[in-house]
C-alpha cells in the first residue's frame, strides 16, 4: 500500500502563485505583484558553461498549443555537475542551481535561458550525453510527465544509455535543434509526433 500523497492537476490558475512574472517577456501587463522564487533564467554570474536559450511550443492531441502548461527543467552545469549530490541538502556546486520554471504564452511557447550542460555519469559507469530533464504540469494533467531534451548532433547521443532504451524511430522527439544559440524543443502530448515520456 502506497503512503504517497496523490498528485493532482496544477489547474488553470497557478500563474499568480508559481510563475507570477512568467509571462512578462511576452506581455508586460500579464504579471502579478507577487515575487518570483523560481524563474526561467537559470544563468548565474559564476556559472560554468556556454549560454544557450531553450525555446519550444507545447501542443495537445489536436495539435493546438497549450497556453496554460507549466514546465520545469533540471540540469547540470557545463562540466556535468549538479548543484548537489543525491539526497544531500548541501550544495556541492553552489554556483549553479540548475532548476528553472517557465509559464507558457497564449501560443504555448515556453523558454529558458541557461547553459549547455556537460556529460553526466550514467548507470554502471557509463556516460550520459548532455541532456536536460523536463517535468511538465498542466490543466488536464493529473500528474506530471517527465521527458528529456538532448542536443541534436552531439556525438555522445550515439552511446547514451537512456536514448538506447527509446525505439530508434521515436528518438527524434527528444532532439532539440540548434538555431544559433537557441535550441528549439517542441513537445507534443499526443499524435504522430508524440514526445517520448519516461516512466520514472
Amino acid at each position, binding site marked *: 500500500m*502506497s*503512503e*504517497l*500523497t*496523490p*498528485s*493532482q*492537476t*496544477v*489547474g*488553470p*490558475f*497557478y*500563474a*499568480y*502563485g*508559481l510563475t*507570477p512574472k512568467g509571462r512578462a517577456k511576452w506581455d508586460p501587463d500579464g504579471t*502579478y505583484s*507577487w*515575487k518570483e*522564487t*523560481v524563474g526561467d533564467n537559470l544563468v548565474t554570474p559564476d556559472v560554468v558553461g556556454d549560454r544557450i536559450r531553450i525555446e519550444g511550443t507545447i501542443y*495537445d*492531441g489536436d495539435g*493546438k498549443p*497549450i497556453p496554460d502548461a507549466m514546465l520545469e527543467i*533540471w*540540469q*547540470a552545469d557545463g562540466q556535468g555537475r*549538479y*548543484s*548537489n549530490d*543525491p*539526497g544531500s*541538502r548541501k*550544495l556541492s556546486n553552489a554556483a549553479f*542551481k540548475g*532548476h528553472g520554471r517557465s509559464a507558457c504564452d497564449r501560443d504555448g511557447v515556453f523558454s529558458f535561458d541557461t547553459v549547455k550542460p556537460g556529460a*553526466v*555519469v*550514467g*548507470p554502471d559507469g557509463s556516460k*550520459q550525453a548532455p541532456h536536460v*530533464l523536463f517535468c511538465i*504540469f*498542466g490543466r*488536464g494533467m*493529473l*500528474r506530471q*510527465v517527465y521527458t528529456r531534451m538532448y542536443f541534436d548532433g552531439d556525438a555522445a547521443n550515439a552511446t547514451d544509455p*537512456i536514448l538506447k532504451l527509446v525505439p530508434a524511430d*521515436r528518438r527524434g522527439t527528444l532532439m532539440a535543434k540548434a538555431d544559433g544559440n537557441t535550441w528549439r524543443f517542441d513537445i507534443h*502530448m*499526443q499524435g504522430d509526433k*508524440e514526445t*517520448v*515520456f519516461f*516512466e*520514472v
Partner: protein
Amino acid sequence: MTLIYPRESLSAYPKYLTPDYKSTAKRSPTKPLILMPHTLTELTGPVYGHDAIQENDNDLTKQGKGEPLGERIIVHGYVLDEDKRPVADSLVEIWQANACGRYVHLVDQHPAPLDPNFTGAGRTVTDKSGYYKFITVKPGAYPWGNHYNAWRPNHIHFSVFGPSFLSRLVTQMYFPGDYLFPFDPIFNSVTDERDRARMISTFDLENTIPDWALCFRFDIVVRGRDKTPEDMD
C-alpha cells in the same frame, strides 16, 4: 543513506487519462512510457533554503493593506518521505481561491467578487523537522466547465519539492466532510478511497487558536525511501 524511488508507490497517483475529467483526453500520453533506470539526473534535485522566502510570505492575511474577508484558518503539517522521515528545507508553495471562490488569475471568469486584500498565493520553506505553516482564509467552492453544474470542492493547491526531482509533487488539499467530494472528477481521479483520504486535511482542535482561527493539519508524503537489504538483490 541512499534513497530509492519505488515505482509501485505511484499506484496512489491518478491515471494520466481520466475520462471524467475531460481535459485529460487531449493532454495525456497515448504511447507507452519508456521505463528507464534512475540516474544521477533523476536522483538529484533543487534545494531552496530560507533565503527563498520573505517575512509574511506564509501569512496570506497580511499581504494586503487590510485583512481579507472570510474564515481565517491555519494550515500546517509536515513534508515527509515514504519512510516518514522529515524533508527539511522543502519549498512549499500554495495558491487558492478567495473566500468567495474567486481566483485573482487574469482568466478566471467566475462572477464572484475579488478581495482587494487577498491574492491567495503563499510560500514557505520547511524547518529541520519538515514542518510548515500557513495562515490564510478558507477558500470557497467555485463552478467549472467540465460538465453540467460542476463545482470544485474547497481546496488549496500545493507545490512541494522533496529529496530529488522524482519527489516533485503538485497536489490539492481538501477539507474534511466536503459534500462536493462525490461529484468531483479531479478528487475522484484517485480511485482508492484510502489514497484519496491522504488529500483531505484533518480538523486540528489542539492547534486551533481560541477566539482567532480554526486549524487544519495536512501532512504531505513525497517519493523517496531508504534502501533496505532486500532492495540490493
